C-alpha cells in the first residue's frame, strides 16, 4: 500500500467512513463550489474617500507611508520626491506592468530599469492588484508585470495602488480573482503585504528591515478626487 493510500485509509477508519458516502461528498462539493464568506469585520466596509482614509490609518499603524495623488501622471513625481526625501538614489526597478509603463517616468530624473530583481536593486516599484481597507494591506500578483522578487529583494519598495482597487476585505480579493480568472484563479504567488519587513527575534524588540524591504511607500491614485 502506498503512503497515500494508507494515510487515506487510516483517516477513514478513524472517522468511521468509507469515503463513498454521498452526503459527505455533497457537503464537500458544495463548500468548494460556493465558498462561505464567513464573518467579515465591519471596519473595512467603507467607500470612496472614507475607504482611502481607513486604508491609510491601518497602513500607517504598521509603518507603511502613504501618499495620495490625483492621477497616474502624478505617480513618478511622487516616487522621485519620496526617494529624494529619504536620501535614496534616483533609481527604480520595475516589471512590465502596462499601467506603470504608461506613467511619465521620463519627466523625472529617475533612472528606471525593467525586469525581475536579482538582488542588486536598492529601490523597486510595483502596481498592486488590490488594497485591503480592513488591514491597510497590499495584494500583489506574480508574473511579468510585477515580478515577486521586486516585492522582497530591494531595500525600499514603492507600491502604486489605484483607489478603484481598494476592497473592504481579503474575501473581496478572492471574489475578484475568481470572476477574472475562473476555475484556477490564482497566479503562482499572491502576496499580501502589510507594512515593511520586521523582526522581534533580537532582544524581544521590533526592528524594521529584517529580510524584506526596510521601507514601504504606497502611492494611492485617488480616482474619487478626479471623478
Amino acid at each position, binding site marked *: 500500500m502506498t503512503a497515500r493510500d494508507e494515510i487515506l485509509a487510516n483517516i477513514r477508519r*478513524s472517522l468511521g467512513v468509507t469515503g463513498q458516502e454521498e452526503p459527505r461528498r455533497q457537503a464537500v462539493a458544495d463548500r*468548494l463550489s460556493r465558498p462561505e464568506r464567513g464573518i467579515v*469585520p465591519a471596519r473595512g466596509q467603507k467607500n470612496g474617500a472614507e475607504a482611502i482614509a481607513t486604508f491609510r490609518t491601518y497602513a500607517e499603524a*504598521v509603518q507603511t507611508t502613504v501618499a495620495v495623488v490625483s492621477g497616474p501622471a502624478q505617480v513618478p513625481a511622487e516616487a522621485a520626491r519620496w526617494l529624494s526625501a529619504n536620501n535614496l538614489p534616483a533609481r527604480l526597478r520595475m516589471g512590465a506592468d502596462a499601467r506603470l509603463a504608461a506613467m511619465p517616468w521620463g519627466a523625472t530624473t529617475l533612472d528606471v530599469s525593467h525586469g*525581475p530583481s536579482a538582488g542588486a536593486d536598492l529601490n523597486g516599484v510595483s502596481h498592486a492588484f488590490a488594497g485591503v481597507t480592513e*488591514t491597510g494591506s497590499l495584494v500583489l500578483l506574480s508574473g511579468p508585470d510585477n515580478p515577486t522578487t521586486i516585492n522582497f529583494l530591494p531595500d525600499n519598495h514603492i507600491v502604486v495602488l489605484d483607489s478603484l482597487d481598494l476592497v473592504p476585505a481579503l474575501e473581496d480579493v478572492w471574489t475578484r480573482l475568481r470572476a477574472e480568472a475562473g476555475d484556477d484563479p490564482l497566479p503562482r504567488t499572491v502576496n499580501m503585504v*502589510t507594512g515593511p*519587513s520586521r*523582526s522581534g527575534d533580537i532582544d524581544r*524588540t521590533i526592528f524594521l528591515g529584517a529580510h524584506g524591504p526596510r521601507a514601504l511607500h504606497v502611492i494611492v491614485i485617488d480616482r474619487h478626487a478626479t471623478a
Partner: protein
Amino acid sequence: MTATITSPAFRENAHQALQDKQLQAVLGTMRTGFSVKRAEAAAALPEFEALRDSARDIKNHTLAHLDLYLEQYEAKVTASGGHVHFARDAAEARRIVADICRALGAKTVTKGKSMISEEIGLNDHLEREGFTPIETDLGEYIIQLRHETPSHIIAPAFHLSAAQVEQDFRRVHTQLPPERDLSEPVSLLNEARQALRQHFLAADVGITGANFLIAETGTSVIVTNEGNGDLTQTLPKAHIVLASLEKLVPTLDDCAQMLRVLARSATGQDSSVYTTFSTGARRASDPDGPGAYHVVLLDNGRTGMLGTSFQEMLRCIRCGACMNHCPVYQAVGGHAYGWTYPGPMGSVLTPALIGVDKGGHLPNASTFCGRCESVCPVRIPLPKLMRHWREKEFERHLTPATSRSGLALWGFFARRPWLYRQATRLGAAALALAARGKGKFASLPFASGWTQGRDFPAPEGRTFQAMWAAQAGKRRLAGAQPDVKGQAQ
C-alpha cells in the same frame, strides 16, 4: 529518529530552568509582551469572538471531511504543476525531502520557519546526507548557530539575550572585522540580513512550512514578518513545503477567516507583514519563482487522533497564545518540555505523537487555571484534554514508579505557590486549595479524584480579557515591546 526527546525528564528540566537567572529574566518579559498585545488586538475587533467560533467550525468541518479535502487538494496541486508526497512518519518525510534535494543536485538548502522540520529532525538528516541546511528566520538562524532547538513555536530564540546573540555572531561571522560595533541590537539584525542575503541568492532548494493548505486551489500559505520565507521559496530552483495533514482548510474564504484570528492571537498584530499564497511552480510567463513545487504531507500519528477526544487538538493553528498565557511555561520556558512542542498545546500533542510513555508527564505540567483555553483562537479545550491524558495514563496501568513520578511533578508545581500568583482569580482559588493540601496530592484541586466526573471550570473568555485590559497599563514596562515574528508553520 525524530528530534531528541527529553520530555520524560520534565521535572529535572523544569528545575534547571528555575535556577537559570538569565532565562528567568527573559521569561519575565513575556507577561508584558505577547499577552497584553493579544488582549488589545482582540478587544479592538468587535467580531473577534465570533471569528474564533468561525475558525473552530471551519477546522471541525475540515477534520470531519479530511479524506475528501485531501483528495481535492492533491488534485489541485497536481493540476497546477506541483507534486504532493504523503509521508506516514518522520523517517519517510526526511527521505522524501533528501531525495528531492539529491535529484536536483542541491548543495545549499535555505529554510523558512517550520515546526514540522523540527518535529522530524530534518536539519540533522540533511547534514548527514551531505546538504547544508540554513535556517533563515532570524530566531531559527540564531539557534541553529548555537545548535539549540526552539524554545517557543513562534519566537524560537525567545530565551536568548542580545549579548548572547552578539557572542554567537562574533564566533561565526569571522569574515567580518572583529572590532566592529555590535552594541546596538539593530546592528545584529543588519549583520544577519547581510549574512543571510548571500545564502538566499546561493541556495538550490528552499524549504518552508505552511500555516494553511487550501483545498479549493491547491495553495500553501505562509505567514511571516521578516520576509525570509518568501526569499526562501522564490529564489531557488525548487520550493518544498513541509506540512502536516491538519493544515488543510476548504476554501480561500475559510483561510481569510483563520488569518484574522491567527495574527491577533500570536503577536497581537491585525495582520502579519507577509501572507503569501503559493500555487504550483513558476508559470511559463513568470520571470521569477521556483521551477518546481513539492508538498510533503506528514501524518506522524495524526490520523490516529481523529475519531478520539484528541481530534480537537488537530484544530491547532500554532499561534502560541496558550504558552504565552501559561503560568507553567512562563516559569520554566519552552526547553523544559523536552520536545518540539512546548506549553499547553505541547502537553496535549506530544503524548499523542511520541507516545504516552515518553510524553505522559507533560499533561501534569499544568495548574489547570484555564487561561490557555480562554485565549485559544480555535477554542481547543486544552485543560480537558490534559486531564484525558492523565486518565489514559492510569488506564494503561503504567508501572507504579511512573505514576509516582507523574504525581511528583504535580507536587513540584503545587509546592511553588508563586507559580500561580500570575494566574487568574481562579488560579488564586486553586492555590488556596493547594495550600490546604499541604503537599498531599489527593487533596490537590487537580488530582484525579477531583476531576473525575466533573469539569474544572475554566474562566470565561471575556471576563478574563476585560481583566487583562484593565491591568494592561500597569503591566507595560517602559520600552518593553512584544516579540513579533512569523507565526509557526
